[in-house]
């Protein structure tokens, strides 16, 4: 399908775009033509299309209002494909490219006919605070009625249905001066800073630097037109090595210590984005000085019927005409309270648009403006207001109330309006600056800057270019330079709040995107919202995706007027990052998929993967979970692995265990402080199970510690606990015992640890060990020796986490796989298996060995866990010793770790399940405790569990119950050691 018309509202001789660059695009499936350099909005306007969206609450037909990022109405979806669909793109910002496909939002079935617009007829029933008033009761209605309703009504646009295939880049940058905003102020500041040899970054959210100079047809600077002057400064800056110019780059967030986040849009304006470019690039800039030159945003007039398509901001109309060569209509009305709209009106007139009349709320207007209007034959009504408009999908008339109270009707197809300019305080406010109310000009202006930051230009309240340039030079420490400016228009004047005698009638919109009217704000005040923060939340004024760029000041003025308070007493809401909506992708950048979080692999990981292991994540580690053989499910594999270890032997990768080397003359003294156990009597070559507490007496970590010599300990920690245990030790060593001569080194990744467990463990490793006698007599349970295994220097432990005869071979990580394979070559022919963490868990539970963090939860003392024997009470001090004396920790009835056996041996309890003594008691039941570990024990032919139960040690043999949705499960309280309670196998 080709375009039917030839851009009827494109004006010859206006704008910077060339007809040679004609391209095609679609809007809601219909094909149109536009020009290269257009925005989607300017291209649609060139085709006479104003209706671009429906409002959020009332589904009112809406046209584009603004030519920049402040646009509240014209939000569209832009699709390249299913995965590349971006909702809520402002048509006024989206650059046109050949083949661009845009769809309107918030309408069904079509933009012209939308069923949801009945909401507008229902509007008397949707007042401010509607949700708070309506969705209160009954509570039952929440799940089925209210929440689904709110969820359906909330949210604009559709999310893409596939994951984002684009790349996003992230860069850090440092500079002397970061200038945000490349309008007249920013350009001059950059030029002056560059002259002083400072490193400069200048960014602007638009594709071109120049700001409002690109929209002004009259101004002349240094003998050049506005756009030509901007281009000349840019050309000059481009030649310099110390200046980086970033266009399409939004300063979205101002953080501490002059760190500013910028997002650069790299490919969203391209028809076919090159594969080697990221879609967006996030810049994190740390600047010695920040210059904010954000400019000002024009406000709309608040009057009844101010939201019909065809009603636009005067400055926007001027931008579309002078930059894009597009007029907003054939016959425009003008409604204003300041001078700038006159310039827009005169420009439109010159471009062939009829001006129906200029309606100015002010009774005093400059003679030169009135004279110029008269010369062009444009009627001006001063002291007048637009009282109403007509037209459904497009404005077609306005009713004017003149100064004398007379009503006049005008046929129009467009209406341009200006209530004056609001300095953009967003980034200044984000820098934690406090805006100050300026009574004379009725504006908030930047006050003191808490960071090394200067605001200049229109965002600082400057209303003419001479002031702008003076501020810009001063901001970068340059002498004021004489810059000739001709035909400048002042930004002064304007109104905030409602306008005209009829403002209370009909819908006078304050916030277009959230459909907040002047009446809503007044209602909120009447209903008791006296702070602007409350008014904002009650009415949702300023809470849409445009963050109230147009509406905040109006809403504030209306509320202040109702309250009869000065504006600063009602307050200004705080501006938050991001300044404009920012993609998640730009924040996430490369940290997604496999780069989202580091994944730690042991030296034996690849062997496990090659041998079919299933893996489970344990903190950042990937651990071999079980090794299924052909046809086995997890349950069968784990049963086989346990059986093989108990009857023959198994080989297990324990490399993830945290390992800390504690070295120094005071090592034993330090260990005495950090662990509950006594370390003085432990002989070199022996190992001990150690418990670490926090100062409050609760178990923090545990592990086996080998004493290699009087001043060297090989400490192991839980897999997930290694970093915090080292931090805990360092804390005490550095800050409480700085005089101790002890050094701590994390050695987790230096050692690969291979556990060989089972009756044949010694037979498997014996021929591989040299330099040590590992007989039962010479190398009993809980021994450690430095020797060689497979010719590699090793630390060999005789320890067991299975209850079987066991060894743990520590070799330097680089030899890990080679030693593992050599061990495996001996183990496999003897009938041993490789086993994973699940079998390890089952076997340790059969022995009642706890896992800190699973069987303890930060409120468990050694006594609670049945580990009183590991606490050396006679030691003068250890961390947690005093904490253990606290009355609550010594009281009766604490939860204690016990074993549980289900009456039906086949029933396996759920971990975390609650335990009660009487399942028939009324709800809420009295919970005695909960299940911490639960497994099927193939070895014992029954399920086993551990649980923390009130007074558990005194409940041996008691029957308790685990209530589940399908009935209570009866259990018997037992000791925690289910297998080989005498430990005969361990010592074999």
């Amino acid at each position: 399908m080709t375009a039917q018309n030839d851009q009827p509202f494109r004006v010859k001789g206006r704008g910077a775009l060339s007809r040679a660059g004609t391209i095609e695009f679609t809007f809601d499936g219909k094909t149109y033509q536009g020009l290269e350099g257009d925005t989607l909005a300017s291209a649609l306007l060139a085709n006479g299309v104003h209706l671009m969206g429906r409002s959020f609450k009332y589904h009112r037909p809406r046209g584009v209002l603004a030519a920049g990022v402040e646009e509240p109405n014209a939000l569209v979806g832009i699709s390249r494909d299913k995965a590349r669909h971006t909702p809520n793109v402002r048509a006024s910002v989206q650059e046109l490219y050949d083949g661009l496909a845009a769809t309107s939002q918030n309408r069904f079935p079509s933009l012209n006919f939308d069923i949801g617009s009945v909401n507008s007829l229902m509007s008397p029933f949707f007042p401010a605070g509607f949700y708070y008033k309506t969705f209160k009761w009954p509570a039952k209605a929440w799940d089925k009625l209210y929440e689904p309703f709110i969820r359906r009504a909330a949210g604009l646009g559709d999310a893409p249905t596939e994951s984002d295939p684009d790349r996003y880049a992230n860069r850090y940058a440092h500079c002397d001066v970061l200038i945000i905003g490349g309008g007249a102020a920013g350009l001059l500041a950059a030029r002056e800073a560059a002259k002083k040899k400072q490193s400069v970054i200048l960014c602007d959210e638009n594709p071109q630097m120049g700001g409002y100079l690109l929209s002004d047809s009259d101004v002349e600077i240094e003998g050049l037109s506005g756009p030509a002057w901007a281009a000349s400064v840019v050309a000059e800056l481009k030649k310099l090595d110390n200046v980086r110019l970033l266009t399409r780059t939004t300063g979205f967030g101002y953080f501490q210590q002059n760190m500013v986040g910028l997002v650069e849009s790299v490919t969203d304006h391209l028809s076919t984005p090159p594969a080697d470019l990221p879609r967006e690039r996030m810049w994190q800039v740390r600047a010695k000085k920040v210059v904010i030159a954000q400019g000002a945003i024009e406000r709309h007039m608040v009057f009844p019927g101010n939201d019909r398509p065809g009603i636009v901001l005067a400055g926007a109309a001027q931008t579309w005409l002078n930059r894009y060569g597009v007029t907003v209509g054939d016959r425009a009305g003008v409604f204003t309270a300041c001078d700038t709209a006159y310039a827009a009106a005169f420009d439109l007139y010159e471009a062939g648009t009829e001006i129906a009349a200029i309606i100015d709320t002010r009774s005093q207007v400059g003679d030169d403006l009135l004279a110029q209007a008269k010369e062009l034959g444009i009627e001006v009504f001063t002291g007048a207001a637009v009282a109403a408009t007509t037209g459904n999908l497009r404005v077609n008339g306005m009713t004017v109330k003149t100064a004398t109270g007379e009503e006049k009707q005008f046929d129009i197809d467009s209406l341009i309006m200006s209530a004056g300019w609001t300095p953009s305080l967003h980034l200044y406010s984000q820098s934690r600056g406090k805006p100050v109310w300026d009574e004379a000009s009725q504006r908030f202006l930047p006050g003191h800057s808490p960071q090394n930051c200067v605001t200049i230009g229109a965002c600082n309240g400057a209303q003419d270019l001479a002031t702008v340039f003076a501020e810009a030079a001063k901001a970068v420490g340059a002498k004021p330079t004489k810059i000739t400016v001709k035909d400048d228009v002042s930004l002064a004047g304007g109104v905030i709040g409602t306008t005209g005698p009829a403002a209370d009638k009909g819908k006078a919109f304050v916030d277009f995107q959230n459909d907040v009217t002047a009446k809503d704000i007044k209602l909120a005040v009447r209903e008791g919202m006296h702070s602007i923060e409350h008014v904002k939340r009650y009415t949702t004024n300023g809470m849409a995706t445009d963050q109230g760029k147009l509406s905040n000041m109006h809403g504030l003025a209306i509320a202040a007027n109702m309250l009869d308070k000065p504006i600063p007493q009602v307050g200004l809401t705080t501006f938050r990052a991001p300044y404009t909506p920012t993609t998640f992708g730009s924040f996430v950048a490369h940290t997604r998929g496999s780069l989202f979080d580091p994944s730690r692999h042991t030296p034996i990981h690849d062997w496990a993967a090659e041998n079919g292991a299933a893996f489970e994540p344990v903190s950042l580690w990937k651990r071999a979970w079980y090794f299924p053989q052909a046809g086995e499910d997890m349950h069968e594999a784990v049963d086989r692995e346990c059986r093989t270890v108990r009857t023959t032997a198994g080989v297990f990768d324990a490399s993830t265990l945290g390992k800390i080397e504690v070295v120094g003359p005071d090592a034993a003294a330090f260990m005495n402080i950090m662990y509950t156990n006594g370390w003085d009597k432990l002989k070199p070559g022996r190992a001990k199970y150690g418990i670490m507490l926090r100062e409050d007496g609760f178990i923090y970590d545990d592990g086996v510690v080998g004493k290699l010599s009087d001043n060297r300990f090989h400490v192991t920690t839980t897999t997930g606990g290694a970093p915090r245990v080292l931090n805990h030790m360092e804390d005490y060593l550095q800050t409480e015992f700085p005089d101790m001569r002890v050094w701590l080194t994390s050695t987790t990744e230096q050692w690969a640890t291979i556990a060989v467990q089972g009756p044949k463990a010694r037979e498997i490793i014996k021929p591989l060990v040299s330099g040590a006698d590992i007989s039962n007599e010479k190398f009993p349970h809980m021994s450690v020796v430095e020797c060689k295994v497979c010719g590699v220097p090793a630390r060999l432990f005789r320890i067991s986490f299975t209850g079987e005869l066991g060894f743990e071979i520590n070799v330097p990580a680089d030899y890990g796989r080679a030693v593992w394979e050599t061990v495996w070559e001996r183990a496999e022919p003897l009938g041993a298996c490789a086993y994973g963490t699940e079998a390890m868990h089952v076997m340790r539970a059969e022995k009642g060995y706890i896992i800190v963090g699973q069987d303890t939860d930060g409120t468990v003392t050694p006594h609670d866990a049945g580990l009183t024997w590991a606490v050396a009470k006679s030691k003068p001090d250890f961390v947690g010793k005093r904490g253990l004396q606290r009355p609550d920790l010594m009281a009766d009835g604490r939860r204690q770790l016990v074993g549980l056996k289900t009456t039906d041996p086949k029933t396996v309890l759920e971990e975390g399940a609650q335990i009660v003594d009487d399942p028939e008691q009324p709800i809420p039941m009295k919970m005695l405790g909960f299940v911490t570990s639960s497994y099927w024990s193939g070895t014992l032919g029954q399920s086993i569990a551990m649980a923390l139960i009130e007074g558990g040690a005194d409940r041996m043999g008691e029957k308790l119950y685990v209530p589940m949705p399908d009935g209570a499960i009866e259990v018997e309280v037992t000791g925690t050691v289910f297998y080989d309670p005498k430990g005969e196998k361990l010592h074999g």
Partner: protein
Amino acid sequence: MLLIHCPYCQEDRPELEFANAGEAHIVRPKNMDEMSDEDFEAMFFIRDNPKGVNLERWRHAFGCGRFFNAIRNTVSDKFLKVYKAGEPRPSDEEIAELLK
């Protein structure tokens, strides 16, 4: 993101390298066994949460690994001073001076 000056490295480094370690200048008594429950509670559990000047511990966890002390204004997030572990708590007069 904050830049924090490590008094050991003598460099401004990004916040990501550091870990906050709670309130500063809480001394672990030598004779803990003799502490009353109230004193233990005050020592271990009770913490100030001031609006304004806060004396706190940080660790240059992903740098030199050292613990140090800092005076930070919790309202502005500004670090007024950093100093090594073991150095005395700055006097109130000195802190008042830093705030100026």
